[in-house]
Structures are given as structure tokens and as C-alpha cells.
């Protein structure tokens, strides 16, 4: 695990997001064990119940699973599942606000799309 708890969102969501980030980065590979609730609690000085809530969120999304008596493990295909989840969140969290901000600047749809194309061309090759 890396990173610190500092942004304003709820702590259990931050814990879930950090675990997801680490799965995407390959810190935790499929079928590998992730830190326990108590390890997370100790590492970040948070209540174990909060850490458990973050982990349970990922269990509900099929990203982690529990091996009885051993601990929590990364599911098969977890990386892909995280990406799918992030794509949905990307639409709500980035694309919609982008369109909203464009509208408040009176940009037309074409102008907005042209800007997106330009950003793609100027940016890192995909």
C-alpha cells in the first residue's frame, strides 16, 4: 500500500480506491493476498471497522474475495473489473462535468469535440 489519507472523501472509499489503484499497478496480483483489516487499520491509523467497510465494498464488486481463516485475496479478472468500474465513474466524474463546464462557456458540441480531439493529438500517444 502507498499513499496517504488526505482527500475529503469518506475514508472507507479512500481505502477501497487505494486498493484498486494497487491492483491496477500490479502491487497486488490476481490470487495474491491483500493486507488485512487490522494491518490497514494500523498502517493508516483508522478504525478497523472503517477498513473492513472499504474491503467489503471491493468484495461486493467482485474485486476481492475471502478465503476462510486466511484472509482477503485478489479475484481472477480483478484488474479488468476495476477498469470497468473506473470507466463508468469516468463518465460521471469527468465527461459530464466537462460537458457542463463547456455549456457554461457557451461552447458548441462541435467546438467541445474539436478540443477533445486536439487534446488527444497533443497528448501522449495512446
Amino acid at each position, binding site marked *: 500500500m502507498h499513499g496517504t489519507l488526505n482527500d475529503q472523501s469518506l475514508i472507507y472509499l479512500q481505502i477501497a480506491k487505494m486498493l484498486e489503484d494497487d491492483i491496477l499497478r500490479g502491487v497486488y496480483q490476481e490470487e495474491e493476498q491483500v493486507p488485512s483489516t487490522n494491518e490497514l487499520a494500523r498502517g493508516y*491509523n*483508522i*478504525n*478497523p*471497522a*472503517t477498513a473492513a467497510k472499504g474491503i467489503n465494498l471491493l468484495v461486493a464488486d467482485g474485486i476481492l474475495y475471502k478465503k476462510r481463516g486466511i484472509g482477503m485475496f485478489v479475484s481472477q479478472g480483478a484488474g479488468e473489473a476495476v477498469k470497468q468500474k473506473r470507466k463508468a465513474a469516468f463518465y460521471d466524474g469527468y465527461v459530464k462535468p466537462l460537458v457542463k463546464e463547456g455549456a457554461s462557456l457557451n461552447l458548441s458540441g462541435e467546438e467541445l469535440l474539436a478540443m477533445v480531439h486536439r487534446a488527444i493529438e497533443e497528448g501522449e500517444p495512446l
Partner: protein
Amino acid sequence: MSTGILKAQGLCKSYKNKQVLHNLDLTIEPGKIYGLIGRNGAGKTTLLGILTAQNTKDGGQVTYNGQDVWENQQALNDICFSREMQSTMFYGRNNLKIKHYLKSAAIYYPNWDKDYAQRLLEEFKLEPQKKIYQLSKGQLSMVTITIALASRSPITILDEPAAGLDVVMRERFYQLLLEDFAQTNRTFLVSTHIIEEAASVFEQVIILDEGRILENCPTEELVDQFRYISGREDEVDRVCAGLEILSVHQMGRHKTVAVRGSGVKLEDARKADVDIAPMNLQNVFVALCSHGDAQ
């Protein structure tokens, strides 16, 4: 660890003409870390004293597993309230040594863990031979914390344990608390004024305001009900209709409002042309308890 439910019902307490607790109900469930927050004079220490039968009450009842705690040795064996140390005693210096306090704690608390107390003394660099009046405010807090943790009581209550500690020791204290909690799963009730750094440690937060319990619920659940909404005055007013408004700041036509609402109503606000920012526990506390003192 098998711990029971500590329950207060209809507590009333007055000092002379001033009523400090108003018909107060509180339930402390086992296996959780509770944070008790309240302003100066809200009645925190009085409440903790009454919960642990160290202070008298004018009305109401305190029970542990259904048994009245007053003069009930069996119930009080399970409860530790480690009070703030005083460097003066009656009209003189407190000449007792740290080791005297530890010795009497070993008698009072049936689950006393001597080795753990020893480890904590070393961790805090406290010398058992030192007299209480020679200690700094931070060191007095450390003695209080040592006694509380080493008591290994199923219900352990700490009143302002962080108050005298520097920021490094405060962090260390919460680490020690969580480590012990992970091992024992005992119940902790901790009061503090330094809210934000403790927020992540508290599973449940109790807000005491002018002798009444305003809130007793999971910390994140509480915090998530509050938002700041800001933008153009008319747009903010439209979005905030139907939401509980806690404070308003206005600069020209720009308005910022602190609101409380259910998830659904706050979701509606997201579609409008306003900025929505989350609050932290400290913001929530100020919004609920400032009574116009803070600007």
C-alpha cells in the same frame, strides 16, 4: 473479550442552579471505539463521571448489563475511567510517585496487565520513581493513558487523553489504542477537543451539546449527511429548499450554505449549477454546536 452494554437513561445533573445534563440517554455497545466530543462546559467529564459511578446524579439510571452501576463492585470491575492527573492535591503538591498510582491501579482493576504497563512506561520514557508534581502536562497524560490501557478493562474511558500531548505523541497514542483494540476488541470511550486527527479512529461519534446528546452514530455516516453548497444566491437558495440549513455565509451575490440532508436530496443538488463540497467531522461539529459563536 466479553463486554456488556453500558446504558444511561434519563440522566439529570445540576451543580447548584446550573443544570449540566438534561434527561440524557446513551447506550455504549461492546467492541467499538467511541469518540465523545463537545464544547467546553458541555458536560463531558460530568457524564463520564456519572457513567462510572464516580460522580453522583440527580436523576436517571446507569446500568451495565442491566445492573445498576452505583456501588456495584461487579460492574465497576469491568469499567476503567482513567481521570486526568492533578499535580496538586488538596492545598499542596501531589507528592505521590507514578509507581504508587500503578500499584493502586493493580489493586483496583482485576484485569491489570503489569507487563503491558511496564512496556508503556518505557515507550513514554516515564520513570516510576518520579513524583506526580514533577511531571509536565504531557507526561501526566501519559500516566493516565498507561493506566487506562494497562487496566485491560472491558470498558475503558479516557477523558481528554490527547490534551497535553504533542502531535507526535498524539499520533502514537492513537496507534497504541488501535493496536490494543485490534488485539482485545474491548470498548473504548474517548473524549477529545482535537477532533479531526481522531475522527478516523472513532467508529462511532457522540456529540454532547449543552448537556444533551445531539448525535450518537457511525462517524462516516454522520459526516456524509453534511455538505457545503456555494454559488449564485438564487441558485443556492433553490437547491437548498427542503434541506436543513446550519449556517450561511454571503459575499455579494455569492452564497455558501452548510446543509444537512439525505443522500437523495444532496444528489439533486449535483445537477444544479452550484459547487458542492464535503465536510469533515470538525466542520460538522462547528456547524452543529457553534450556536453563532463561530464566524
